[in-house]
């Protein structure tokens, strides 16, 4: 099978302006993936499916990843002019100091697709798509028109991560009920406070159970 770089070149030859990037996998698996732009993703996916050499006719897996806002601390050299007294005289001196600057890399939601070819007996080819952010720009194109098997899995990603798939024929929650507001697989999901009975609590659960007991005690104390 072609390598990821070769697939990328093939895509760029077939779909002008595809803007495909390679996301390297530094692990021993070295399973590099393609990052597609949402606006050209359907055209690229159709190419991957219909190309005679790749013939990726089977979508095996769709999954979501939640990337939180990342705070990155960087050491930056800053040069600034400081007033100093040198040999009894006031002077303006340029001074270079190292400073830690923090910047926030905005988080996003990611959807990962694994493709195989039944006809050519090769795979997987992995591609990803990323949303603009985690709150209001969560729309991505649906792959259901290209691979029918994406339908339920995209519903699952919609349910658990909150990615809205444009072009999906039936985008409803699949595991949780209608009217449920949260997305439980997001990393900032807080589960409901029903920690009244935790006989073997430890770690995170123990913390939550203790908080629950403290809140109950405070409520009782306040009531009397």
């Amino acid at each position, binding site marked *: 099978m072609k390598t990821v770089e070769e697939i990328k070149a093939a895509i760029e030859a077939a779909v002008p302006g595809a803007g495909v990037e390679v996301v390297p996998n530094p692990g021993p698996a070295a399973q590099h993936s393609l990052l597609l732009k949402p606006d050209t993703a359907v055209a690229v996916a159709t190419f991957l499916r219909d190309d005679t050499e790749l013939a990726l006719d089977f979508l095996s897996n769709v999954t979501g990843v939640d990337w939180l806002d990342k705070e990155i601390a960087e050491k930056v050299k800053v040069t600034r002019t400081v007033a100093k007294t040198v040999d009894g005289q006031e002077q303006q001196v340029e001074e270079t100091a190292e400073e830690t600057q923090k910047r926030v890399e905005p988080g996003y939601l990611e959807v990962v697709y694994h493709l195989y070819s039944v006809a050519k007996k090769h795979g997987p080819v992995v591609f990803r798509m990323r949303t603009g952010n985690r709150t209001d720009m969560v729309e991505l194109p649906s792959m259901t028109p290209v691979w029918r098997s994406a339908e339920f899995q995209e519903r699952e990603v919609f349910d658990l991560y909150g990615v809205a798939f444009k072009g999906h024929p039936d985008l409803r929650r699949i*595991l*949780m*009920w*209608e*009217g*449920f*507001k*949260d997305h*439980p697989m997001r990393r900032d*999901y807080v*589960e*409901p406070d*029903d920690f*009244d*009975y935790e*006989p073997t609590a430890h770690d995170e*659960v123990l913390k939550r159970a203790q908080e629950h007991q403290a809140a109950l005690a405070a409520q009782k104390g306040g009531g009397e």
Partner: protein
Amino acid sequence: MAVDEGLKIELGKQGVFVTTLQELYNWGRRSSVWPMNFGLACCAIEMIATTMARYDLARFGAEVFRPSPRQADLMIISGTVTKKMAPQVVRLYNQMGEPRYVIAMGACAISGGPFKQGYNVLKGIDRYIPVDVHIPGCPPRPEALLEAFMTLQKKIDAQHLTGEERPRHLDAEAPGMFPVPEQGEHDLEPPANKNVWTVPVVIR
């Protein structure tokens, strides 16, 4: 009123069978507990095995699995109760006619089991409906389910027809319907039925 055991045996030797209405009534009920044809997860496979020839649940008069709650006496909660399924389980229980019993089979049904901290799993069905017998195990072996049946039969045998401790179906005042939880925005509402479930006290 209990019959003196010695007298009973003596009369039996003479060909006279003496019993009480209570014993007869309980014997009838405990010997024909019809379970509901209702499985939730992997424990249901063990439940099916229990009804088959090798373990032979028919020995306890409980081989008639009824596909309708109206005809069933016993609900075996065999498996994980998800928060999506819990209202339906309570509704089915409400549709069963009295006398009715519940066996919570396996770790999930009694406490949520390995999925207890999951966002979608109820932490034990006893939060919404009264459970008669709890069986631990993941899943419990068919022998454990048979043990639960025998425990339930002993429980039925010990019930009095009159008096304070009479079972729910003989008490006009006892609650017959159990509120079905609503599926709210974040969790089931209420998270537990306070009349059925109180927080157990852990003794260490």
